[in-house]
Protein backbone atom coordinates (compact mmCIF):
# COMPACT_ATOMS: atom_id res chain seq x y z
CA UNK A 1 0.00 0.00 0.00
CA UNK A 2 1.32 3.40 -0.88
CA UNK A 3 0.34 6.52 0.99
CA UNK A 4 1.03 9.85 -0.63
CA UNK A 5 1.69 12.79 1.62
CA UNK A 6 0.73 16.28 0.46
CA UNK A 7 4.04 17.83 1.56
CA UNK A 8 7.52 16.43 2.17
CA UNK A 9 7.98 17.55 5.79
CA UNK A 10 5.34 15.36 7.44
CA UNK A 11 6.86 11.95 6.57
CA UNK A 12 10.27 13.14 7.78
CA UNK A 13 8.71 14.39 10.98
CA UNK A 14 7.07 11.00 11.56
CA UNK A 15 10.33 9.19 10.88
CA UNK A 16 12.36 11.53 13.05
CA UNK A 17 12.11 9.69 16.42
CA UNK A 18 13.33 6.41 14.92
CA UNK A 19 16.02 8.14 12.90
CA UNK A 20 17.24 9.97 16.00
CA UNK A 21 17.46 6.77 17.98
CA UNK A 22 19.33 5.02 15.18
CA UNK A 23 21.68 7.98 14.80
CA UNK A 24 22.44 8.47 18.49
CA UNK A 25 22.64 4.84 19.59
CA UNK A 26 23.94 3.16 16.48
CA UNK A 27 25.41 5.39 13.77
CA UNK A 28 27.36 7.70 16.05
CA UNK A 29 28.93 4.97 18.20
CA UNK A 30 29.60 2.89 15.11
CA UNK A 31 31.39 5.79 13.50
CA UNK A 32 33.35 6.37 16.73
CA UNK A 33 34.38 2.73 16.87
CA UNK A 34 35.41 2.76 13.25
CA UNK A 35 37.59 5.83 13.86
CA UNK A 36 38.94 4.50 17.14
CA UNK A 37 40.01 1.29 15.46
CA UNK A 38 42.75 3.18 13.63
CA UNK A 39 44.11 4.98 16.69
CA UNK A 40 45.99 4.02 19.79
CA UNK A 41 44.82 5.89 22.85
CA UNK A 42 46.31 6.15 26.33
CA UNK A 43 44.33 4.72 29.22
CA UNK A 44 43.06 8.14 30.33
CA UNK A 45 41.89 9.23 26.88
CA UNK A 46 44.15 12.30 26.96
CA UNK A 47 46.12 11.64 23.82
CA UNK A 48 45.95 9.42 20.81
CA UNK A 49 48.04 8.48 17.87
CA UNK A 50 47.08 7.28 14.39
CA UNK A 51 48.39 3.76 13.92
CA UNK A 52 46.70 2.67 10.69
CA UNK A 53 45.87 -1.02 10.57
CA UNK A 54 48.08 -1.91 13.50
CA UNK A 55 45.13 -2.67 15.80
CA UNK A 56 43.76 -5.14 13.27
CA UNK A 57 47.19 -6.70 12.73
CA UNK A 58 47.58 -7.16 16.48
CA UNK A 59 44.14 -8.70 16.63
CA UNK A 60 44.70 -11.23 13.89
CA UNK A 61 48.08 -12.29 15.26
CA UNK A 62 46.74 -12.71 18.79
CA UNK A 63 46.18 -16.41 19.65
CA UNK A 64 43.76 -15.29 22.38
CA UNK A 65 41.54 -13.78 19.71
CA UNK A 66 41.36 -17.05 17.81
CA UNK A 67 40.70 -18.79 21.11
CA UNK A 68 37.79 -16.42 21.62
CA UNK A 69 36.42 -17.16 18.13
CA UNK A 70 36.52 -20.87 18.93
CA UNK A 71 34.85 -20.27 22.30
CA UNK A 72 32.13 -18.24 20.58
CA UNK A 73 31.48 -20.97 18.00
CA UNK A 74 31.33 -23.72 20.64
CA UNK A 75 29.10 -21.57 22.81
CA UNK A 76 26.78 -20.45 20.00
CA UNK A 77 26.24 -23.85 18.42
CA UNK A 78 25.71 -25.42 21.86
CA UNK A 79 23.09 -22.82 22.72
CA UNK A 80 21.39 -23.17 19.34
CA UNK A 81 21.35 -26.97 19.24
CA UNK A 82 20.50 -27.61 22.89
CA UNK A 83 17.92 -24.83 22.92
CA UNK A 84 16.23 -25.95 19.73
CA UNK A 85 16.16 -29.65 20.61
CA UNK A 86 14.62 -29.03 24.01
CA UNK A 87 12.15 -26.51 22.60
CA UNK A 88 11.06 -28.96 19.90
CA UNK A 89 10.60 -31.69 22.49
CA UNK A 90 8.54 -29.37 24.69
CA UNK A 91 6.49 -28.13 21.74
CA UNK A 92 5.66 -31.67 20.61
CA UNK A 93 4.55 -32.51 24.15
CA UNK A 94 2.60 -29.28 24.65
CA UNK A 95 0.89 -29.84 21.31
CA UNK A 96 -0.41 -33.17 22.59
CA UNK A 97 -1.73 -31.88 25.90
CA UNK A 98 -5.48 -31.51 25.77
CA UNK A 99 -6.39 -30.35 29.26
CA UNK A 100 -4.76 -27.21 30.63
CA UNK A 101 -3.04 -26.47 27.33
CA UNK A 102 -2.98 -22.73 27.88
CA UNK A 103 -1.44 -23.04 31.36
CA UNK A 104 1.45 -25.16 30.06
CA UNK A 105 2.08 -22.88 27.14
CA UNK A 106 2.05 -19.76 29.30
CA UNK A 107 4.50 -21.25 31.78
CA UNK A 108 6.82 -22.32 28.99
CA UNK A 109 6.83 -18.85 27.46
CA UNK A 110 7.60 -17.01 30.72
CA UNK A 111 11.40 -17.26 30.81
CA UNK A 112 11.53 -15.11 27.70
CA UNK A 113 10.30 -12.17 29.76
CA UNK A 114 13.22 -12.45 32.21
CA UNK A 115 16.05 -9.94 31.66
CA UNK A 116 19.36 -11.55 30.59
CA UNK A 117 21.25 -10.33 33.67
CA UNK A 118 18.53 -11.70 35.97
CA UNK A 119 18.64 -15.03 34.19
CA UNK A 120 22.39 -15.04 34.70
CA UNK A 121 22.12 -14.25 38.41
CA UNK A 122 19.42 -16.89 38.83
CA UNK A 123 21.58 -19.65 37.40
CA UNK A 124 24.66 -18.30 39.14
CA UNK A 125 22.88 -18.73 42.46
CA UNK A 126 21.58 -22.18 41.58
CA UNK A 127 25.07 -23.33 40.58
CA UNK A 128 27.13 -21.48 43.21
CA UNK A 129 29.70 -24.04 44.38
CA UNK A 130 29.29 -23.29 48.10
CA UNK A 131 25.53 -22.74 48.45
CA UNK A 132 23.74 -23.32 45.12
CA UNK A 133 21.12 -26.10 45.37
CA UNK A 134 22.08 -27.66 42.03
CA UNK A 135 25.81 -27.50 42.80
CA UNK A 136 25.24 -29.11 46.20
CA UNK A 137 23.06 -31.80 44.65
CA UNK A 138 25.75 -32.46 42.02
CA UNK A 139 28.33 -32.73 44.78
CA UNK A 140 26.23 -35.30 46.61
CA UNK A 141 25.98 -37.18 43.31
CA UNK A 142 29.77 -37.22 43.07
CA UNK A 143 30.33 -34.39 40.59
CA UNK A 144 32.78 -31.83 41.83
CA UNK A 145 31.12 -28.67 40.57
CA UNK A 146 33.14 -25.48 40.60
CA UNK A 147 32.72 -23.27 37.59
CA UNK A 148 35.18 -20.74 39.09
CA UNK A 149 37.97 -23.22 38.50
CA UNK A 150 36.81 -25.51 35.73
CA UNK A 151 36.54 -23.87 32.29
CA UNK A 152 34.33 -26.60 30.85
CA UNK A 153 31.91 -26.33 33.73
CA UNK A 154 31.85 -22.56 33.30
CA UNK A 155 30.98 -23.07 29.64
CA UNK A 156 28.20 -25.51 30.58
CA UNK A 157 26.81 -22.96 33.01
CA UNK A 158 26.66 -20.10 30.49
CA UNK A 159 25.18 -22.42 27.88
CA UNK A 160 22.46 -23.51 30.34
CA UNK A 161 21.67 -19.96 31.41
CA UNK A 162 21.57 -18.64 27.83
CA UNK A 163 19.62 -21.62 26.50
CA UNK A 164 17.02 -21.42 29.23
CA UNK A 165 16.08 -17.93 28.12
CA UNK A 166 15.95 -18.81 24.44
CA UNK A 167 13.92 -22.02 24.78
CA UNK A 168 10.69 -20.03 25.20
CA UNK A 169 11.21 -18.22 21.93
CA UNK A 170 12.05 -21.44 20.06
CA UNK A 171 9.13 -23.16 21.72
CA UNK A 172 6.66 -20.56 20.44
CA UNK A 173 7.82 -20.92 16.87
CA UNK A 174 7.94 -24.72 16.97
CA UNK A 175 4.47 -24.88 18.50
CA UNK A 176 3.07 -22.60 15.80
CA UNK A 177 4.88 -24.70 13.19
CA UNK A 178 3.46 -27.93 14.58
CA UNK A 179 -0.03 -26.52 14.64
CA UNK A 180 0.32 -25.53 10.99
CA UNK A 181 0.95 -29.14 9.92
CA UNK A 182 -2.40 -30.32 8.53
CA UNK A 183 -3.99 -33.05 10.63
CA UNK A 184 -4.95 -34.98 7.53
CA UNK A 185 -1.27 -35.50 6.65
CA UNK A 186 -0.66 -37.20 9.97
CA UNK A 187 -3.79 -39.26 9.50
CA UNK A 188 -2.77 -40.25 5.97
CA UNK A 189 0.62 -41.34 7.32
CA UNK A 190 -1.09 -43.34 10.06
CA UNK A 191 -3.18 -45.15 7.45
CA UNK A 192 0.00 -45.63 5.42
CA UNK A 193 1.36 -47.64 8.32
CA UNK A 194 3.90 -45.22 9.81
CA UNK A 195 4.49 -45.47 13.57
CA UNK A 196 4.10 -42.23 15.58
CA UNK A 197 7.90 -41.96 15.74
CA UNK A 198 8.26 -42.46 12.01
CA UNK A 199 5.40 -40.03 11.32
CA UNK A 200 7.30 -37.37 13.22
CA UNK A 201 10.62 -37.89 11.44
CA UNK A 202 9.31 -38.45 7.92
CA UNK A 203 6.35 -36.05 7.83
CA UNK A 204 6.28 -33.52 10.65
CA UNK A 205 9.97 -32.73 10.97
CA UNK A 206 10.56 -32.11 7.23
CA UNK A 207 7.55 -29.80 7.22
CA UNK A 208 9.09 -27.90 10.13
CA UNK A 209 12.37 -27.34 8.27
CA UNK A 210 11.66 -23.71 7.32
CA UNK A 211 10.93 -22.98 10.99
CA UNK A 212 14.02 -24.89 12.07
CA UNK A 213 16.28 -22.98 9.71
CA UNK A 214 14.83 -19.65 10.76
CA UNK A 215 15.37 -20.53 14.42
CA UNK A 216 18.93 -21.70 13.77
CA UNK A 217 19.88 -18.28 12.38
CA UNK A 218 18.02 -16.41 15.12
CA UNK A 219 19.61 -18.56 17.84
CA UNK A 220 23.11 -18.12 16.48
CA UNK A 221 22.62 -14.36 16.31
CA UNK A 222 21.27 -14.45 19.86
CA UNK A 223 24.20 -16.49 21.17
CA UNK A 224 26.71 -14.32 19.34
CA UNK A 225 25.48 -10.91 20.32
CA UNK A 226 22.83 -10.95 23.02
CA UNK A 227 24.34 -13.09 25.74
CA UNK A 228 26.65 -10.46 27.19
CA UNK A 229 24.37 -9.97 30.21
CA UNK A 230 24.21 -13.66 31.01
CA UNK A 231 27.97 -14.14 30.76
CA UNK A 232 28.72 -11.01 32.77
CA UNK A 233 26.39 -12.08 35.56
CA UNK A 234 27.65 -15.67 35.77
CA UNK A 235 31.32 -16.12 34.85
CA UNK A 236 32.60 -12.71 33.68
CA UNK A 237 34.30 -14.52 30.82
CA UNK A 238 36.36 -16.72 33.11
CA UNK A 239 37.96 -18.76 34.43
CA UNK A 240 40.86 -17.64 32.27
CA UNK A 241 39.38 -16.97 28.85
CA UNK A 242 37.15 -20.05 28.85
CA UNK A 243 33.84 -18.22 28.46
CA UNK A 244 35.08 -15.05 26.78
CA UNK A 245 33.00 -14.79 23.63
CA UNK A 246 33.79 -12.19 20.98
CA UNK A 247 31.25 -9.73 22.35
CA UNK A 248 32.47 -10.22 25.90
CA UNK A 249 36.05 -9.73 24.75
CA UNK A 250 35.16 -6.34 23.25
CA UNK A 251 33.90 -5.22 26.62
CA UNK A 252 36.70 -6.86 28.58
CA UNK A 253 39.55 -5.49 26.47
CA UNK A 254 38.00 -2.04 26.16
CA UNK A 255 36.64 -1.29 29.60
CA UNK A 256 38.66 -3.59 31.82
CA UNK A 257 41.90 -3.81 29.85
CA UNK A 258 41.53 -0.19 28.64
CA UNK A 259 42.85 -1.07 25.20
CA UNK A 260 40.30 1.12 23.44
CA UNK A 261 41.86 0.84 19.99
CA UNK A 262 41.99 -2.97 20.05
CA UNK A 263 38.46 -3.14 21.41
CA UNK A 264 37.26 -0.83 18.66
CA UNK A 265 38.94 -3.00 16.02
CA UNK A 266 37.10 -6.03 17.42
CA UNK A 267 33.82 -4.09 17.27
CA UNK A 268 34.42 -3.38 13.61
CA UNK A 269 34.98 -7.10 12.95
CA UNK A 270 31.77 -7.91 14.84
CA UNK A 271 29.88 -5.30 12.84
CA UNK A 272 30.97 -7.05 9.67
CA UNK A 273 29.79 -10.40 11.08
CA UNK A 274 26.41 -8.91 12.06
CA UNK A 275 26.06 -7.47 8.57
CA UNK A 276 26.84 -10.84 7.01
CA UNK A 277 24.40 -12.69 9.22
CA UNK A 278 21.68 -10.16 8.50
CA UNK A 279 22.18 -10.68 4.80
CA UNK A 280 21.93 -14.47 5.28
CA UNK A 281 18.85 -14.05 7.38
CA UNK A 282 17.09 -11.88 4.82
CA UNK A 283 18.25 -13.90 1.84
CA UNK A 284 16.99 -17.21 3.12
CA UNK A 285 14.18 -16.31 5.42
CA UNK A 286 12.48 -13.88 3.10
CA UNK A 287 12.05 -16.67 0.59
CA UNK A 288 11.22 -19.33 3.10
CA UNK A 289 10.35 -22.68 1.56
CA UNK A 290 6.71 -22.50 0.59
CA UNK A 291 4.53 -25.56 0.68
CA UNK A 292 1.06 -25.43 -0.75
Amino acid at each position, binding site marked *: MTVTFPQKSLPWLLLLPQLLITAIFFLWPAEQALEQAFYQEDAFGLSREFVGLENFLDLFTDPLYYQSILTTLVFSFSVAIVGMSLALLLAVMADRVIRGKLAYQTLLIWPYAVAPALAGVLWWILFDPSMGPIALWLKSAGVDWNHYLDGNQAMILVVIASTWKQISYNFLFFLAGLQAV*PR*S*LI*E*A*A*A*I*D*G*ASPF*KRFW*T*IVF*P*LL*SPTTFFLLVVNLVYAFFETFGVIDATTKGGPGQSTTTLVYKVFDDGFVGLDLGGSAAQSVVLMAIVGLMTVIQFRFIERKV*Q*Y*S
Partner: protein
Amino acid sequence: MTDVILEKVGKTYPNGYHAIPSVDLTIEEGEFIVLVGPSGCGKSTLLRMVAGLESISTGELRIRSERMNEKEPAERDIAMVFQNYALYPHMSVYDNMAYGLKNRGMPKDQIAEKVSDVAAMLGLTELLQRKPRQLSGGQRQRVAMGRAMVRDPKVFLFDEPLSNLDAKLRVQMRVEIRQLQRKLGTTTLYVTHDQVEAMTLADRLVVLNKGKAEQIGTPMDLYNKPATPFVAAFIGSPSMNLIDANLTEQGIKLSEALTLPLSHQHRGGIVWEFVQSTWK
Protein backbone atom coordinates in the same frame (compact mmCIF):
# COMPACT_ATOMS: atom_id res chain seq x y z
CA MET B 1 -19.58 -62.32 0.36
CA THR B 2 -20.06 -59.64 2.93
CA ASP B 3 -17.05 -57.43 3.32
CA VAL B 4 -17.77 -54.69 5.83
CA ILE B 5 -20.34 -54.85 8.58
CA LEU B 6 -21.33 -51.99 10.84
CA GLU B 7 -23.43 -53.28 13.70
CA LYS B 8 -25.20 -50.68 15.83
CA VAL B 9 -22.17 -48.44 15.43
CA GLY B 10 -22.47 -45.23 17.44
CA LYS B 11 -20.31 -42.26 18.35
CA THR B 12 -20.44 -40.12 21.46
CA TYR B 13 -17.80 -37.42 21.91
CA PRO B 14 -16.10 -36.89 25.29
CA ASN B 15 -18.09 -33.66 25.71
CA GLY B 16 -21.29 -35.73 25.62
CA TYR B 17 -22.29 -34.85 22.07
CA HIS B 18 -24.15 -37.77 20.53
CA ALA B 19 -22.95 -37.55 16.92
CA ILE B 20 -24.18 -40.92 15.72
CA PRO B 21 -26.78 -42.84 17.74
CA SER B 22 -26.65 -46.19 15.92
CA VAL B 23 -26.03 -47.24 12.34
CA ASP B 24 -26.44 -50.70 10.84
CA LEU B 25 -24.94 -51.36 7.44
CA THR B 26 -23.83 -54.48 5.61
CA ILE B 27 -21.60 -53.99 2.59
CA GLU B 28 -21.06 -56.73 0.03
CA GLU B 29 -17.68 -57.32 -1.54
CA GLY B 30 -17.00 -54.98 -4.45
CA GLU B 31 -19.95 -52.77 -3.63
CA PHE B 32 -19.82 -48.98 -4.05
CA ILE B 33 -21.60 -47.43 -1.10
CA VAL B 34 -22.15 -43.69 -0.87
CA LEU B 35 -22.84 -41.95 2.41
CA VAL B 36 -24.76 -38.81 1.64
CA GLY B 37 -26.37 -36.13 3.75
CA PRO B 38 -26.22 -32.44 4.63
CA SER B 39 -23.21 -30.92 6.45
CA GLY B 40 -22.92 -32.09 10.02
CA CYS B 41 -25.01 -35.23 9.51
CA GLY B 42 -22.16 -37.44 10.70
CA LYS B 43 -21.18 -38.97 7.36
CA SER B 44 -17.51 -38.03 7.64
CA THR B 45 -17.45 -39.16 11.27
CA LEU B 46 -18.82 -42.54 10.24
CA LEU B 47 -16.19 -42.86 7.51
CA ARG B 48 -13.41 -41.88 9.93
CA MET B 49 -14.67 -44.49 12.38
CA VAL B 50 -14.33 -47.13 9.67
CA ALA B 51 -10.83 -45.80 8.93
CA GLY B 52 -9.85 -45.92 12.60
CA LEU B 53 -9.22 -42.18 12.85
CA GLU B 54 -12.12 -41.85 15.28
CA SER B 55 -12.86 -44.33 18.04
CA ILE B 56 -16.09 -46.31 17.95
CA SER B 57 -18.13 -45.62 21.10
CA THR B 58 -20.73 -48.36 20.76
CA GLY B 59 -21.39 -51.28 18.45
CA GLU B 60 -18.99 -53.25 16.32
CA LEU B 61 -17.18 -52.82 13.01
CA ARG B 62 -16.12 -55.93 11.14
CA ILE B 63 -14.08 -56.16 7.95
CA ARG B 64 -14.03 -59.65 6.42
CA SER B 65 -15.70 -60.86 9.63
CA GLU B 66 -12.80 -59.64 11.78
CA ARG B 67 -13.56 -57.20 14.58
CA MET B 68 -11.83 -53.87 13.87
CA ASN B 69 -12.86 -51.61 16.76
CA GLU B 70 -9.50 -51.75 18.53
CA LYS B 71 -7.28 -52.00 15.45
CA GLU B 72 -4.99 -49.16 14.40
CA PRO B 73 -5.76 -47.54 11.01
CA ALA B 74 -2.71 -49.22 9.50
CA GLU B 75 -3.89 -52.69 10.58
CA ARG B 76 -7.33 -52.40 8.96
CA ASP B 77 -6.11 -52.80 5.39
CA ILE B 78 -8.01 -49.75 4.20
CA ALA B 79 -6.90 -46.79 2.11
CA MET B 80 -8.36 -43.33 2.29
CA VAL B 81 -8.57 -40.39 -0.09
CA PHE B 82 -8.92 -37.12 1.80
CA GLN B 83 -10.86 -34.05 0.80
CA ASN B 84 -7.67 -31.95 0.64
CA TYR B 85 -5.79 -34.99 -0.76
CA ALA B 86 -3.31 -34.88 2.17
CA LEU B 87 -0.34 -35.42 -0.14
CA TYR B 88 3.01 -35.18 1.63
CA PRO B 89 4.22 -31.81 0.27
CA HIS B 90 7.93 -32.50 0.67
CA MET B 91 7.86 -35.80 -1.22
CA SER B 92 7.70 -36.43 -4.96
CA VAL B 93 4.65 -38.10 -6.49
CA TYR B 94 6.61 -41.35 -6.55
CA ASP B 95 7.53 -41.11 -2.87
CA ASN B 96 3.98 -40.19 -1.96
CA MET B 97 2.73 -43.36 -3.57
CA ALA B 98 5.59 -45.51 -2.28
CA TYR B 99 5.41 -44.30 1.33
CA GLY B 100 2.80 -46.80 2.49
CA LEU B 101 4.59 -49.69 0.80
CA LYS B 102 7.95 -48.70 2.28
CA ASN B 103 6.41 -48.58 5.74
CA ARG B 104 5.16 -52.12 5.21
CA GLY B 105 8.66 -53.28 4.34
CA MET B 106 8.07 -54.17 0.69
CA PRO B 107 11.31 -54.68 -1.30
CA LYS B 108 12.39 -51.69 -3.40
CA ASP B 109 12.04 -53.32 -6.83
CA GLN B 110 8.51 -54.49 -6.05
CA ILE B 111 7.59 -50.99 -4.90
CA ALA B 112 8.92 -49.52 -8.14
CA GLU B 113 6.93 -52.00 -10.20
CA LYS B 114 3.74 -51.44 -8.23
CA VAL B 115 3.99 -47.66 -8.35
CA SER B 116 4.72 -47.55 -12.07
CA ASP B 117 1.77 -49.87 -12.80
CA VAL B 118 -0.65 -47.69 -10.90
CA ALA B 119 0.89 -44.50 -12.29
CA ALA B 120 0.37 -45.83 -15.81
CA MET B 121 -3.24 -46.67 -15.02
CA LEU B 122 -3.87 -43.13 -13.79
CA GLY B 123 -1.79 -41.35 -16.41
CA LEU B 124 0.74 -40.15 -13.85
CA THR B 125 3.88 -41.68 -15.37
CA GLU B 126 5.21 -38.33 -16.59
CA LEU B 127 4.62 -36.69 -13.22
CA LEU B 128 6.33 -39.16 -10.87
CA GLN B 129 9.29 -36.89 -10.09
CA ARG B 130 7.19 -33.76 -9.48
CA LYS B 131 6.28 -32.33 -6.10
CA PRO B 132 2.58 -31.97 -5.23
CA ARG B 133 2.78 -28.16 -5.44
CA GLN B 134 3.74 -28.45 -9.12
CA LEU B 135 0.53 -30.32 -9.94
CA SER B 136 -2.94 -29.11 -10.87
CA GLY B 137 -5.94 -29.92 -8.70
CA GLY B 138 -7.00 -32.81 -10.94
CA GLN B 139 -3.51 -34.28 -10.96
CA ARG B 140 -3.28 -34.08 -7.17
CA GLN B 141 -6.58 -35.88 -6.98
CA ARG B 142 -5.18 -38.67 -9.15
CA VAL B 143 -2.05 -38.95 -7.01
CA ALA B 144 -4.22 -39.24 -3.91
CA MET B 145 -6.12 -42.06 -5.60
CA GLY B 146 -2.91 -43.67 -6.77
CA ARG B 147 -1.58 -43.63 -3.24
CA ALA B 148 -4.70 -45.48 -2.13
CA MET B 149 -4.58 -47.94 -5.02
CA VAL B 150 -0.94 -49.11 -4.81
CA ARG B 151 -1.60 -50.90 -1.57
CA ASP B 152 -4.43 -53.09 -2.92
CA PRO B 153 -6.49 -52.49 0.21
CA LYS B 154 -9.65 -54.38 1.12
CA VAL B 155 -11.64 -51.17 1.31
CA PHE B 156 -11.36 -47.72 -0.29
CA LEU B 157 -12.59 -44.80 1.76
CA PHE B 158 -13.28 -41.50 0.02
CA ASP B 159 -13.97 -38.35 2.02
CA GLU B 160 -15.55 -35.83 -0.38
CA PRO B 161 -12.67 -36.31 -2.82
CA LEU B 162 -14.09 -34.15 -5.61
CA SER B 163 -15.29 -31.11 -3.70
CA ASN B 164 -12.11 -29.11 -4.39
CA LEU B 165 -12.32 -29.54 -8.16
CA ASP B 166 -14.10 -27.34 -10.68
CA ALA B 167 -17.46 -28.51 -12.01
CA LYS B 168 -16.24 -29.91 -15.32
CA LEU B 169 -13.36 -31.85 -13.81
CA ARG B 170 -15.64 -33.16 -11.10
CA VAL B 171 -17.93 -34.82 -13.64
CA GLN B 172 -14.93 -36.30 -15.44
CA MET B 173 -13.31 -37.63 -12.26
CA ARG B 174 -16.64 -39.04 -11.13
CA VAL B 175 -16.78 -41.25 -14.20
CA GLU B 176 -13.15 -42.20 -13.77
CA ILE B 177 -13.52 -43.18 -10.13
CA ARG B 178 -16.49 -45.37 -10.98
CA GLN B 179 -14.64 -47.06 -13.84
CA LEU B 180 -11.55 -47.70 -11.73
CA GLN B 181 -13.61 -49.12 -8.91
CA ARG B 182 -15.41 -51.50 -11.31
CA LYS B 183 -12.11 -52.57 -12.78
CA LEU B 184 -10.42 -53.18 -9.42
CA GLY B 185 -13.55 -54.53 -7.75
CA THR B 186 -12.57 -53.02 -4.42
CA THR B 187 -15.26 -52.39 -1.85
CA THR B 188 -15.72 -48.64 -1.55
CA LEU B 189 -17.22 -46.31 0.98
CA TYR B 190 -17.63 -42.80 -0.39
CA VAL B 191 -18.77 -39.68 1.45
CA THR B 192 -20.30 -36.72 -0.32
CA HIS B 193 -22.85 -34.00 0.27
CA ASP B 194 -23.54 -33.71 -3.46
CA GLN B 195 -26.60 -35.77 -4.31
CA VAL B 196 -25.87 -35.91 -8.05
CA GLU B 197 -22.48 -37.42 -7.25
CA ALA B 198 -24.15 -39.80 -4.83
CA MET B 199 -26.88 -40.92 -7.26
CA THR B 200 -24.51 -41.44 -10.20
CA LEU B 201 -21.75 -43.30 -8.34
CA ALA B 202 -23.50 -45.53 -5.87
CA ASP B 203 -24.57 -49.14 -6.02
CA ARG B 204 -26.37 -48.33 -2.82
CA LEU B 205 -26.81 -45.09 -0.96
CA VAL B 206 -27.00 -44.37 2.75
CA VAL B 207 -28.85 -41.14 3.43
CA LEU B 208 -27.77 -39.79 6.79
CA ASN B 209 -29.55 -37.15 8.81
CA LYS B 210 -28.39 -36.08 12.28
CA GLY B 211 -26.33 -39.26 12.59
CA LYS B 212 -29.24 -41.51 11.68
CA ALA B 213 -29.50 -43.60 8.53
CA GLU B 214 -32.78 -42.39 7.06
CA GLN B 215 -32.74 -44.88 4.22
CA ILE B 216 -30.37 -47.41 2.66
CA GLY B 217 -31.04 -48.50 -0.90
CA THR B 218 -30.22 -48.27 -4.58
CA PRO B 219 -30.40 -44.83 -6.21
CA MET B 220 -33.64 -45.73 -7.98
CA ASP B 221 -35.19 -47.01 -4.75
CA LEU B 222 -34.45 -43.77 -3.05
CA TYR B 223 -35.65 -41.74 -5.96
CA ASN B 224 -38.91 -43.60 -6.49
CA LYS B 225 -39.73 -44.71 -2.99
CA PRO B 226 -38.17 -42.41 -0.41
CA ALA B 227 -38.75 -43.86 3.04
CA THR B 228 -39.02 -40.56 4.91
CA PRO B 229 -39.91 -36.95 4.06
CA PHE B 230 -36.24 -36.08 4.64
CA VAL B 231 -35.05 -38.46 1.91
CA ALA B 232 -37.86 -37.29 -0.37
CA ALA B 233 -36.80 -33.67 0.02
CA PHE B 234 -33.08 -34.40 -0.15
CA ILE B 235 -33.00 -36.49 -3.33
CA GLY B 236 -33.93 -35.08 -6.71
CA SER B 237 -33.35 -31.80 -8.46
CA PRO B 238 -35.53 -29.81 -8.56
CA SER B 239 -36.60 -31.30 -5.26
CA MET B 240 -39.86 -33.10 -4.75
CA ASN B 241 -42.91 -31.06 -3.77
CA LEU B 242 -44.10 -31.75 -0.26
CA ILE B 243 -47.67 -30.73 0.53
CA ASP B 244 -49.29 -30.87 3.95
CA ALA B 245 -52.53 -32.83 3.86
CA ASN B 246 -54.96 -34.64 6.13
CA LEU B 247 -55.73 -38.32 5.86
CA THR B 248 -59.49 -38.91 6.04
CA GLU B 249 -61.93 -41.71 5.36
CA GLN B 250 -62.45 -40.34 1.84
CA GLY B 251 -58.79 -40.08 0.96
CA ILE B 252 -56.06 -37.47 1.20
CA LYS B 253 -57.61 -34.10 1.81
CA LEU B 254 -55.41 -31.33 0.44
CA SER B 255 -57.99 -28.58 0.95
CA GLU B 256 -61.75 -28.20 1.32
CA ALA B 257 -62.13 -28.42 -2.43
CA LEU B 258 -59.64 -31.14 -3.29
CA THR B 259 -59.49 -34.67 -1.95
CA LEU B 260 -57.37 -37.35 -3.58
CA PRO B 261 -58.61 -40.93 -3.35
CA LEU B 262 -56.15 -43.52 -2.09
CA SER B 263 -54.72 -46.07 -4.50
CA HIS B 264 -54.60 -48.82 -1.90
CA GLN B 265 -53.99 -49.21 1.77
CA HIS B 266 -52.43 -46.40 3.78
CA ARG B 267 -49.72 -46.80 6.33
CA GLY B 268 -49.51 -44.76 9.54
CA GLY B 269 -50.22 -41.10 9.08
CA ILE B 270 -48.20 -40.66 5.91
CA VAL B 271 -49.20 -41.76 2.45
CA TRP B 272 -46.66 -41.92 -0.29
CA GLU B 273 -48.42 -43.18 -3.33
CA PHE B 274 -51.44 -41.78 -4.99
CA VAL B 275 -53.04 -42.38 -8.32
CA GLN B 276 -51.64 -39.94 -10.77
CA SER B 277 -54.77 -39.93 -12.88
CA THR B 278 -56.70 -38.26 -10.07
CA TRP B 279 -54.93 -35.04 -10.95
CA LYS B 280 -56.75 -34.88 -14.25
